[in-house]
């Protein structure tokens, strides 16, 4: 069924609404392009109607122009919302994975989005460096601490991991460790370790 006026852009936005779903095959280029085309078509019709001032005895042309104009505004707004919400997902990735994107996510991004991610990353790093004169990493300490040590299980063969006090632990798949929360938190967020709850 062909999509009617401005419906195409709603189809772009729909998958972004459930925020828990990490839907990042984002470059639905075809959909975006069709919205652009629709907008160009509407605009051309409006220009033509505005120039043809002779043929409007009963004022219908004016109302058509107004409707087309509203549709154009709406499409623009939807496109911007689409881009904004995608950037918001990318932002969350920055907080989760740090400044380097996992390749499987990168594959679903377009060039300007990768640039946006890098600039955002820099911008955030600059701010974190400026906090309190000495800098503070806000991506750490994301959960209220309940105890200093947590029991964790390694989900992958990570290899050697050096602790703050110089000791080295070997993180093998399925091995369990009792580690200080501060040290293993980044690894938990990255999905290397899993916290074991009793």
């Amino acid at each position: 069924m062909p999509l009617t006026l401005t419906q195409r852009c709603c189809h772009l936005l729909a998958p972004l609404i459930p925020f828990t779903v990490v839907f990042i095959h984002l470059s639905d280029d075809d959909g975006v392009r069709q919205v652009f085309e629709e907008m160009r078509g509407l605009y051309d019709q409006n220009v033509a109607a505005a120039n043809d001032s002779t043929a409007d005895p009963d004022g219908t042309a004016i109302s058509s122009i107004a409707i087309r104009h509203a549709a154009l505004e709406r499409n623009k707004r939807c496109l911007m919302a689409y881009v904004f919400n995608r950037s918001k997902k990318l932002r969350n990735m920055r907080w989760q994975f740090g400044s380097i994107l996992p390749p499987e996510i990168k594959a679903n991004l377009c060039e300007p989005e990768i640039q946006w991610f890098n600039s955002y990353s820099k911008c955030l790093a600059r701010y974190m460096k400026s906090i309190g004169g000495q800098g503070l990493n806000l991506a750490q300490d994301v959960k209220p601490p309940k105890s200093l040590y947590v029991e964790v299980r390694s989900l992958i063969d990570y290899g050697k991991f050096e602790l703050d006090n110089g000791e080295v632990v070997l993180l093998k798949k399925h091995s369990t460790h009792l580690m200080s929360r501060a040290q293993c938190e980044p690894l938990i967020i990255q999905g290397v370790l899993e916290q074991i709850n009793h």
Partner: protein
Amino acid sequence: MEDTFGEDDYFGEDEHIPAHEVLQTLEDAWLNEKFCPDLLPSQDSYVEAMMEQIQQMEDNLTKLKKTDFRVEVHHMELARIRYIITSYLRTRIEKIEQNTAFILEQETTRSPENPHLSEGELNYAREFLALQENHQKQLVLKHVPPPFQDFMSTQQSLVPNLRSHIFLRAKKDVNGVVIEGDRDTRDEEVDLEENSQHIMQYKPIANLIHDGSVQLI
């Protein structure tokens, strides 16, 4: 808490505020920020003071023997304080990113002595807005018909819902809080008793958060 910071822990040379009071202020600010729809004035001087304090305590801890059981307790305490600080600043950054243009515009209407953003946050907000504008231009605005190409940051920006409801506790007696009525009801005045708790819209009590008469919970 008092045990962690001895009574003789003071901040700076001229400002004699005990460390636990600074922490209390930060905790209040953190909760307020967390539950408030709008961005509240930054407490960056307290954040800075607390961070210096943490640094100092960490240094002191390395001097203690590892087997000393107090080390663990103090590490835990430090981890809690760090969580409060990072969570507080994270909440603020989230609000800034969500309502960038609105917050920047509000900031220009305030006097320079009474800013809501710290210097770092202000720079961040400006950079973030520029980043978003450039991004939208690249991906959307460049490709739409000419009359629709401007960014109009304030129009596109999201605005916090100042009418959303919040839970609060009055720290002291406040008389005559005016609650605006809508079409069907008239304006109403309520008195908040000390230590009483209420659910109400954010807007009428916004000023009371600023002067510390109420605490959001």
